[in-house]
């Protein structure tokens, strides 16, 4: 109970503190690193945000996995979320399209707004929400169906294509956007599971963008890929950024530095620092962030 009230206080502070206070924050010393020093530093709020998260808490049963996270996701930006294993970055990402609903014991409090709509409102249907906020998973998970069916599945169930020709066009443009068309155009009827790992992951990206989402969530999309496939996917992310808002979770700091404009550092369920990627990597304001990006732990 005591810890609960403590975290709530911090939430208030971070909320009120907003941008101005965060700018003057002093880098905390080792000895002082503790519960009370986990207030988010940096500029977590931006104008004209696509997604707005305020005081998000996530519980798995009795386990308090995410503490009072408040952050904005801007339009057409790539937001990278980094942090050591178990820091809650994936958990938080999965809140953004309510993927955590599938976990029985999971409870989410706080507000997450997508264009003024609170996605955790009782009246919100997760089906259209997930069409708006697409997701790419850590392990490539194509359906055990043909390449064509993999991409066409989303448009089909949402009724986005009224004819076969239209569906063909959606499949083609999605595969082109995912940079996979050249490689698979002659074997669309082959099973998607027969592709290489990197191709499978791009197929999953094509599947996600086929339903024309506004936001794409990527949960360590390259962790199962080799460096060449990773580079392909990273280039793809840069291209997709022109049309989509992308939130990417990664444990690869170089990748975060390469693909993102803003970076958020999570530590044990707390959002520690948010800022432009350049600034966070060159001049971290929080001791924990500095320790992580200089490789002292993680």
């Amino acid at each position, binding site marked *: 109970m005591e810890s609960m009230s403590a975290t709530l206080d911090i939430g208030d502070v971070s909320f009120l503190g907003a941008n101005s206070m965060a700018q003057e924050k002093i880098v905390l010393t080792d000895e002082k690193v503790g519960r009370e020093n986990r207030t988010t530093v940096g500029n977590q709020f931006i104008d004209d945000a696509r997604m707005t998260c305020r005081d998000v808490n996530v519980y798995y049963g009795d386990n308090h996995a995410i503490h009072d996270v408040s952050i904005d996701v801007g339009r057409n930006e790539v937001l990278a979320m980094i942090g050591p294993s178990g820091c809650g970055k994936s958990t938080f990402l999965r809140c953004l*399209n309510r*993927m955590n609903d*599938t976990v*029985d014991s999971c409870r989410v409090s706080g507000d997450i707004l997508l264009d003024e709509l609170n996605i955790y409102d009782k009246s919100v249907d997760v*089906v*259209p*929400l*997930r*069409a708006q906020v*697409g*997701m*790419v*998973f850590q*392990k490539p*998970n*194509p*359906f*055990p169906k043909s390449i064509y069916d993999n991409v066409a*599945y*989303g448009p089909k*169930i*949402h009724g986005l294509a009224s004819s076969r020709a239209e569906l063909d066009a959606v499949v083609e443009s999605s595969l082109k956007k995912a940079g996979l068309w050249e490689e698979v155009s002659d074997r669309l009827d082959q099973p998607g*599971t027969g592709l290489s790992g990197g191709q499978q992951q791009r197929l*999953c990206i094509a*599947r*996600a963008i*086929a*339903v024309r989402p506004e936001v794409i969530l990527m949960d360590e999309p390259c962790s199962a890929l080799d460096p060449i496939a990773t580079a392909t996917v990273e280039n793809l992310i840069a291209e997709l950024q022109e049309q989509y808002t992308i939130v990417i979770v990664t444990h690869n700091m170089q990748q975060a530095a390469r693909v993102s404009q803003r970076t958020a550092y999570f530590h044990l369920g707390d959002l520690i620092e948010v800022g432009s990627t350049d600034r966070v990597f060159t001049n971290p304001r929080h001791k924990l962030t500095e320790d992580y990006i200089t490789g002292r732990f993680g």
Partner: protein
Amino acid sequence: MQIDEKESTMDRVKVGLAKRYRREKRFRLFGLGAIVASISFLGLLFVTIGANGWSAFQQTEILLDISFDGEQFDVDNLSSANYGALVKNSMRSLFPEVKGRTDKRKLYKLVSTGASYVLRKMVREDTGIIGTTMKIWLPADDEVDMFLKGYIQRDVPESDRRLSDKQVDWIDRLVADNRLEKKLNTTFFTAGDSREPELAGIRGAVVGSLFTLAVTLLLAFPIGVATAVYLEEFAPRNKWTDLIEVNINNLAAVPSIVFGLLGLAVFLNVLGMPRSAPLVGGLVLTLMTLPTIIIASRASLKSVPPSIREAALGVGASKMQAITHHILPLALPGMMTGTIIGMAQALGETAPLLMIGMVAFIVDVSGSVTDPSTVLPVQIYLWADSPERAFVERTSAAIMILLAFLISMNAIAVFLRRKFERRW
């Protein structure tokens, strides 16, 4: 010093190695022995059943000259004619020297009582044969059949034999005249049960089994799959679902005769359903196989990787769409395998069906699920219980049929699994 130490290590390893390899060899031999033992037991089973049963697929028939005497028949009432007399006349003309009531009766006994049914059927189908004389193969009595197959020995004293010396004499003469021959036993596949072994067939039991299994499949598969899907995908995890799960697992271990008693009490006594009917048999077997199907279906639902579910939900499929489009198709091979194994179990089940009266002696081949009927394992039980020597081979033959059904069902299960199983 160092070298010495090294050598001693090597030596020790070598000593130990030999022991390790011996142990491994022993274990391998033990496993091999187990396999050889189980295969030879299986082989013994198949060989005994085959050796006992193959002769049932042949049946001795007797060639008689039947004269369809016009005076015997009333065209408006063909059934009333004395067909037995036709057979008797024919036998008398073959052996004109046989006199006296007792001897004549013994002579007539060489032909099956079923012969007159064969003749009646022929006349009914074609009244044109009335007034003609025809050579017809008619079933011989089961004692004659057993004698020709060598199960009744000639050198046994007459008093210990089912056939008298005179009858053996007549049989020898018939064989010499090429009037007695072993032919393919079509009756066995086309007739229902009978008190006369030569007229008894497996068809009634096969049809009964098929009806019963059809009822079981139609009820158990959809109910089982729906239960499994609900419990696995929709039901909240709480003490009630835990209780249900424990009970389903327990039900799988309940002795089948208990289900038979339940069927007797509920379906027959309370609901007043017909006795001995495949419908009730199917209901009882549904209760019995449901736990098997539910457990197998849940296991195969669990084995679908969660990533597929996430992928479907991630593109905005509703829960039901994720299940019907992705999870069910992937889980279906496992569900079908479980169902077929449950069905095979149901096919071989005897005890619960005894309780609901499917053990009755039923001659007709049933035409619907409410007609009285019996099933293969019960038919085997009934024949094994019959005193006639000729039923021994029929019992084994029926077991062969049952095994053929079981093996083909399992083969289908393997085939379905191979065909529809997907890897990822």
